[in-house]
């Protein structure tokens, strides 16, 4: 048999692709249509779990939080990432030092990130107290204890951890731009900021798309950050879908809900991913 050894060596890969990625995903989707509770079963109940899911306040709050967190962190990470990359690309001194500083949080876990920001935003000892002791006695800055603001408190931490990565991607994109472009715009007397907005950014479209896909695929997984920083509180104000899934599967003995919720997560990833994949493939065919 041709390439027998290569096939044997690929068994772990084939197993992972077929059994885990395809098989386990299909298994969960199938069981999301059953009334599994403590143990998975085969009692088909149609879309019951989904109806119950969208009737659950906690799930609605989770989805809303993820939407706010997602949109804000997409916009803010891309802006911060691009501005920092553009500044670092201006042939400055200490570029390496600045880059190391901007990227180091990315090496830290979400647990560490969440716990540090929980401490900084602690109203009794953190930023609020410092502001008050500086003279603004009536100032309140306690996002983690305010149900309306808590998701933004988590956002501050998420941006801190992840924006360095986007800066790196953007910097790589800027470095890939032909130096002649800059010479041409300079000859024409176009201002630098105009060059960035009207020339450089349109040229970097693929880099922006990559950055967006990167951030988007990370956002859906947000779990440990929330768990460490607020444990979903106050109340259910900072719950996210990934936490809903975990709690239903492993704490509430309500597997069917967990399966339905995780299937919804997959659907939302597909909604983001399929147009992107389509664009990528379409682009390659046109070249």
């Amino acid at each position, binding site marked *: 048999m041709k390439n027998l050894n290569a096939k044997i060596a690929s068994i772990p*890969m084939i197993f992972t692709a077929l059994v885990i990625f395809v098989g386990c995903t299909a298994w969960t989707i199938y069981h999301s249509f059953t009334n599994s509770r403590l143990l998975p079963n085969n009692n088909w109940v149609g879309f019951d779990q989904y109806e119950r899911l969208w009737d659950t306040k906690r799930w609605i709050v989770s989805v809303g939080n993820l939407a706010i967190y997602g949109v804000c962190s997409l916009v803010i990470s891309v802006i911060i990432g691009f501005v920092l990359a553009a500044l670092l690309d201006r042939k400055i001194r200490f570029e390496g030092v600045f880059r190391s500083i901007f990227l180091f949080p990315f090496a830290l876990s979400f647990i560490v990130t969440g716990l540090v920001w929980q401490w900084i935003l602690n109203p009794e000892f953190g930023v609020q107290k410092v502001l008050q002791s500086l003279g603004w006695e009536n100032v309140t800055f306690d996002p983690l204890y305010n149900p309306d603001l808590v998701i933004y408190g988590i956002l501050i931490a998420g941006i801190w951890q992840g924006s360095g990565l986007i800066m790196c991607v953007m910097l790589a994109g800027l470095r890939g731009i032909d130096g002649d472009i800059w010479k041409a715009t300079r000859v024409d007397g176009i201002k630098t900021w105009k060059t960035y907005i009207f020339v450089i950014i349109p040229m970097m479209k693929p880099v922006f798309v*990559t950055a967006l896909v990167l951030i988007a695929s990370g956002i859906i997984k947000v779990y440990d950050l929330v768990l460490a920083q607020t444990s979903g509180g106050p109340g259910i104000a900072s719950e996210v879908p990934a936490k809903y899934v975990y709690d239903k*599967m492993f704490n509430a003995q309500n597997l069917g809900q967990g399966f339905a919720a995780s299937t919804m997560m997959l659907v939302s990833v597909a909604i983001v991913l399929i147009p992107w994949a389509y664009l990528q493939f379409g682009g390659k065919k046109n070249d």
Partner: protein
Amino acid sequence: MTDETNLVDGPRGPKPKRAFTRRNIFVYGTLLLFAVYYLLPLWVMVVTSLKGMPEIRMGNIFSPPVEVTFQPWVKAWSEACTGINCDGLSRGFWNSIKILIPSTIVSILIASINGYALSKWRFKGSETFFAILVLGAFIPYQIMIYPIVILLREAGLYGSLWGLVLVHTIFGMPIMTLLFRNYFTGIPDELFKAARVDGAGFWGIFIKIMLPMSLPIIVVAMILQITGIWNDFLFGVIYTKPDLYPMTVQLNNIVNSVQGVKEYNVNMAATLLTGLVPLVIYFISGKLFVRGIAAGAVKG
């Protein structure tokens, strides 16, 4: 602002020597402002962990400690409690090491074999499996975690060290395989064909030629896997039992447990201790870390 275009690319005549141009103030000012935002939490962690509790209650979280004490570090490492165990984070640290070493080795070994087969020994369907693998990197873990629990239980590995090693190998596989496949594709086919002519087979070429040549990419893969596995929380909490919880899980249990008086200095010392391994890897590896995430991110 108009003269800044002159500084962009390629010298035209001598550069102006003035340091405090408006452009410089703007560029360095913004960079410094952001540097403060990124460094502040690290600073707060360090100073808080070196203060005593009375000083924390009185003072400002940003101010340096008046009296430096290492007691919180000692307590975080060897006395902090999670549930009934009061032997500190050291237990989680050693658990993480126990998980980290086999997970890194196994995942890189398997991924390098995958990459080698995919680049030099393509067979019918191999590209399809690879495509599924890469797409799999985007599937939310949540949809796969429960069936994997069942598979591990059937195999008698649920809750054990090797079960978790397997899970890390599986979920690290897309990015690792991609890394090795791209690297091995870059190795000239002539070399490979010459070895074939000399009678070397699949494993012979892999061990004698490919592995020795792939040291740079192995280092990049190790950086990615070590930081990734060390920072993992979800898999650790699902697939191991409490006596094998990795450091991140134990850290969260120590800090977020509601029992007793909160000792913020001990908490910050514990947090810093947990972040120390990836931070050291990050600052030692420098450009290689960037190369790793770039390879994983841009091509993925």
